[in-house]
């Protein structure tokens, strides 16, 4: 069964742009996501060892608490779930199709690569000052120079890694 194509990316993109502007207008909040990982990790560490994180600069700068962006990120999970369920394409999948065609269906192989990728990606995002939401969408729509620099850097390195991973074609 071939899955239906998604909604037009230009239309959904434009709607996203409108929502992003309304969010700034109504509550003064630009889209972003990576700071919420800082607050989440801070909340987890605070639970186990509050005295250890209390003096840490980074958790003083980004207080471990639930804020607008944290709820925004939780909302993304819910919104995607609602969209997937109502259009019948919710599917439990351990290994993405493209990955499977190249690297096989080993869950461990995908898990290790994704985990390591996650560690490197967020370290880079925090160093750069944001992710494709914070720098890419919010930064670029404000014509922020750092947004353009970060977004271009994301794509250059991402393209090099993706191309080298998939060089040599699919299995079989």
């Amino acid at each position: 069964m071939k899955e239906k194509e998604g909604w037009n990316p230009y239309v959904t993109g434009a709607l996203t742009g409108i929502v992003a502007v309304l969010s700034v207008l109504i509550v003064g909040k630009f889209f972003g996501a990576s700071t919420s990982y800082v607050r989440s990790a801070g909340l987890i560490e605070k639970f186990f060892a509050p005295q250890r994180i209390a003096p840490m600069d980074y958790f003083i700068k980004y207080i471990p608490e639930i804020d607008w962006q944290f709820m925004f990120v939780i909302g993304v999970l819910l919104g995607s779930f609602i969209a997937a369920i109502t259009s019948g394409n919710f599917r439990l999948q351990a290994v993405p199709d493209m990955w499977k065609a190249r690297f096989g269906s080993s869950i461990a192989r995908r898990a290790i690569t994704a985990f390591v990728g996650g560690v490197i990606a967020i370290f880079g995002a925090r160093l750069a000052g944001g992710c494709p939401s914070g720098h890419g969408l919010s930064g670029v729509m404000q014509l922020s120079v750092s947004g353009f620099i970060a977004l271009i850097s994301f794509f250059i390195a991402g393209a090099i890694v993706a191309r080298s991973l998939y060089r040599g074609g699919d299995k079989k």
Partner: protein
Amino acid sequence: MSLLTYGLITGIIFGFLIQKARVVRYDKQVGALRLLDMTIIKFMFSAVFVGMIGIYFLYGRGVVGLQIKPVTLGANIIGGLMFGIGWGLLGYCPATQLGALGEGRWDALWGILGMLLGVSIFARVYPALKETLYAWADFGKITLPQALGLNHWIVILLLIIFGTLLLGWFEEKGL
């Protein structure tokens, strides 16, 4: 309505849209990085075009303020390239992987766990970075119109023309 409720509702709408556009998928993310399927670029450009017009319209009327992140060249570039490396391996970004998890692609969980570890490491390295990478080539909070000395509407117009040409080329190539 509280700020947290606004956050949740805004996130739900964004998550709904990116799932409908398939932007949350590994295949779409890595498809763009492999220059095979430019869906996420089309989505992103479209969002940014509308966003910059809206933001600068409201900014010009003094209704909203900008929240510019500073240019610290070393941190922006090295961090950006690191993010790209991780993104190429993971195939999701911090926001979209929550969306991927929402539609059942549970390999996103590995990325989420990796990111939680990654920020904990970053928080420990941060004091050293503050005096080195962040202190180097710090140009402050600048926008493209300021850097170029042009009116923001001219910059927006040029970006939309350039972006539209690029998108047109993608469409022509069937990407």
